[in-house]
């Protein structure tokens, strides 16, 4: 009896994870400080009226890196399906690195134009200081 109950509980409570999407940004050279944030929501029979739970991730990452740039962010969106897909959990997690210093903006980009042999306008060569020091 106990074994049956335990088996049923195990089946009900164990979830099967599936990956929905992955996104990433450039990884900085300085990877000394890691930052991570995650957010999840339990959904019953598909009743979900908003996706606001995702918004906290950005602010969480900002809080962990107040005077730097968050870079090298790997974001994963997963679904953890429980018993018979009646209820499931949506989870979004983000891991990255906090790099001290400011990020290079578009205004920082120095555009240099090189003359071409045929006199046509050459494509701009973009050079800049390193984005993060």
């Amino acid at each position, binding site marked *: 009896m106990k074994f049956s109950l335990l088996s049923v509980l195990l089946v009900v409570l164990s979830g099967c994870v599936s*990956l929905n999407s*992955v996104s990433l*940004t450039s*990884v900085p*050279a300085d990877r000394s400080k890691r930052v991570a944030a995650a957010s999840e929501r339990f959904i019953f029979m598909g009743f979900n009226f908003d996706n606001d739970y995702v918004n906290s991730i950005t602010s969480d990452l900002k809080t962990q890196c107040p005077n730097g740039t968050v870079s090298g962010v790997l974001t*994963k969106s997963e679904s953890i399906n429980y018993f018979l897909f009646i209820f499931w959990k949506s989870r979004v997690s983000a*891991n990255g690195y906090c790099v001290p210093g400011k990020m*290079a903006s578009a205004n920082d980009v120095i555009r240099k134009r090189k003359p071409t042999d045929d006199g046509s306008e050459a494509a701009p060569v*973009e050079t800049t200081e390193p984005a993060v020091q």
Partner: protein
Amino acid sequence: MMTKKIFLFIFTVTLSTFVGCTYSVHQVPLSDFRPYTDAKSGKPIEARGSQFVVMGFAQETSYVENTYKQLQNQCANGTVTGIAAKSYSEHGFFSWTNHIHMQGLCVRQ
């Protein structure tokens, strides 16, 4: 006639078990290119990861993080930029393998 149908059924099942595989690409996200340097100056690096799943039973998706770490380890003192991460599945009989293939450019300054 019935024997022929049974044979065809068994043949199809056998074929899908051992030979018949299908692939589906789920997504290919591409990161930004930063810093603004000549693409030729970077060194192409890549990492692959996979996870075998039987009938949907999987407890984690850490193969993604492991692949990402592998990619970073190949560029110890540089910036990994222009990362393309192809996520796809290879389907088998009641099972499939999730793959992730990350390619990037290691730029050392």
